[in-house]
């Protein structure tokens, strides 16, 4: 189990568009509410109403400032982070019990809550901080890619996608088969230069990130201004205004037409 299955043709994963994420936390709480009653139940919160409230979350959004070369200003990039469902995930191979596994059919990395002993080693092996230990449950929790939604026959077809993707208001999260070069997500990655996190670690993440687009401001737009010939702007305006005719594009007087048919209210 802990040994990886042969690479699957199907590689389900997420493509996250850092150019559009506004950091609204919709994916974060949607994930929490689905999974705290779904496969990953419960996602425990400790001292939920006291100081230092913290809990298990499978998806978190960071905010970074990125200072571009030669610029005074930084831009803020919101950065959702969850399991990347790597192709060669050490979090799976280090697991002593086989509770952590990569599904052969679609590549989803899961933890079996029935057999996890809660040794936490998988969370040490993950460079992406994708695994969080649930103290009350005594097992490791992680993004399941909503395996209990995407195939769920009790849900409407349009709901059969990860909770975070369905929630995302700006459409910054995309779900699909990254093993299929023709899929929408693969095409997005190709078009937008989607990239891996920490590729040098060798985990081969399936999830991809789309980089923020170049901005279009004073740093890279050509300077331009509306023409200002010499002389009085007011006089020019007056001449311009004098030529205006209000009715010239109205060709027919509608009172001559029967427009009642257009009243459908």
């Amino acid at each position, binding site marked *: 189990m802990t040994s990886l299955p042969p690479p699957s043709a199907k590689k389900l994963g997420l493509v996250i568009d850092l150019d559009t994420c506004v950091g609204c936390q919709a994916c974060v709480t949607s994930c929490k509410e689905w999974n705290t009653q779904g496969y990953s139940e419960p996602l425990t919160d400790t001292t939920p109403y006291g100081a230092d409230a913290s809990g298990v979350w499978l998806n978190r959004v960071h905010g970074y400032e990125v200072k571009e070369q030669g610029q005074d200003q930084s831009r803020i990039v919101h950065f959702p982070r969850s399991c990347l469902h790597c192709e060669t995930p050490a979090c799976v191979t280090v*697991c002593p019990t086989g509770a952590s596994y990569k599904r052969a059919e679609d590549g989803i990395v899961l933890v079996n809550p029935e057999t996890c002993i809660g040794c936490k080693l998988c969370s040490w092996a993950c460079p992406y901080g994708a695994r969080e230990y649930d103290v009350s449950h005594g097992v490791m929790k992680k993004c399941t890619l909503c395996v209990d939604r995407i195939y769920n026959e009790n849900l409407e077809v349009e709901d059969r996608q990860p909770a975070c993707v369905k929630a995302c208001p700006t459409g910054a999260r995309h779900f699909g088969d990254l093993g299929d070069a023709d899929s929408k997500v693969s095409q997005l990655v190709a078009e937008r230069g989607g990239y891996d996190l920490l590729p040098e670690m060798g985990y081969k993440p399936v999830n991809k990130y789309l980089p923020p687009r170049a901005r279009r401001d004073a740093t890279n737009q050509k300077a331009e201004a509306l023409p200002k010939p010499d002389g009085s702007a007011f006089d020019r305006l007056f001449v311009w205004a004098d030529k205006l005719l209000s009715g010239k594009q109205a060709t027919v007087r509608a009172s001559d037409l029967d427009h009642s048919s257009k009243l459908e209210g």
Partner: protein
Amino acid sequence: MHPAYSVILFTTSSGAGYGLLALLGLVGVNHGQASSLWFGVTAMLVALGLVTIGLLSSTFHLGHPERAWRAFSQWRSSWLSREGVAAVATYVPALLFGLVWSGLIEAPSWVAPLGIFTAVMAMVTVCCTAKIYSTLTTIRAWNNRLTVPVYAAFSLATGALMLAAISSLFGRFQLFQVIIGVMLLVILIALKLAYWRAIDTNPRNHTMEDATGLGRIGRVSQWEVPHTSENYIQKEMGYVVARRHAAKLRRLVILLLLLAALALLAAILAPAIAILAALLAAAAGVFERWLFFAEAQHVVTLFYGAKAA
């Protein structure tokens, strides 16, 4: 990395136990049956006791200790599983060795082969433990070729001092124990210094820019944390000891090890001091192991504001 006390106790205690076991095996190879039943039984009980206490304490940090048996299943890929298998497997030759070596069962011809087998299994177990850490590419300080040698050396050195201490209790303290003990301590000190040098000089070559992939735009710094209280990842992986504090503790570890060596030498005059030597080494082990965790920076900290890892 957060230094969990159960893991520190486990690795130091079982490390010493396995070291002692390995050395007892070699003693058996060299000297045959133990010189007295009580000495043999005591030494074996101490060795297996340290191992067992260590193994039990390691289950304390498990969320489901009752499922610990499942950990034997994944030996093909998991060093933790291998460690578990090796640890349990070691009991078989170790118990048999203990029985024949102490003389509870009279079978002198079996002492040497069982001694070798026990010694090998004990050291395999220690190395498996070390491998758990050294194969984690996410933690630069552990993913180091000296991690395994240091673990082995620590195990053997603390084991040797245990052996000397037990021997002194039974009036069987011998010069070769001093020689081996001091040699192992010197090797350990050298390895540990080399290890620290390595982790201090190894470039921290993963950056926040790499982790986020945003280096393609520019220099990255943390603005907002995802949650305003520390989460599991930050508590478990974000623990970092202050550099100044670490330096002090490193000096303390070396000092304790040197004192242990001195005490061992002093035991030539008064064998009971060997017990002090063993205690000093054990203390050094606890501090060393604490530092092993506390100085280890996990690459995930890059997402939480660390500039490099």
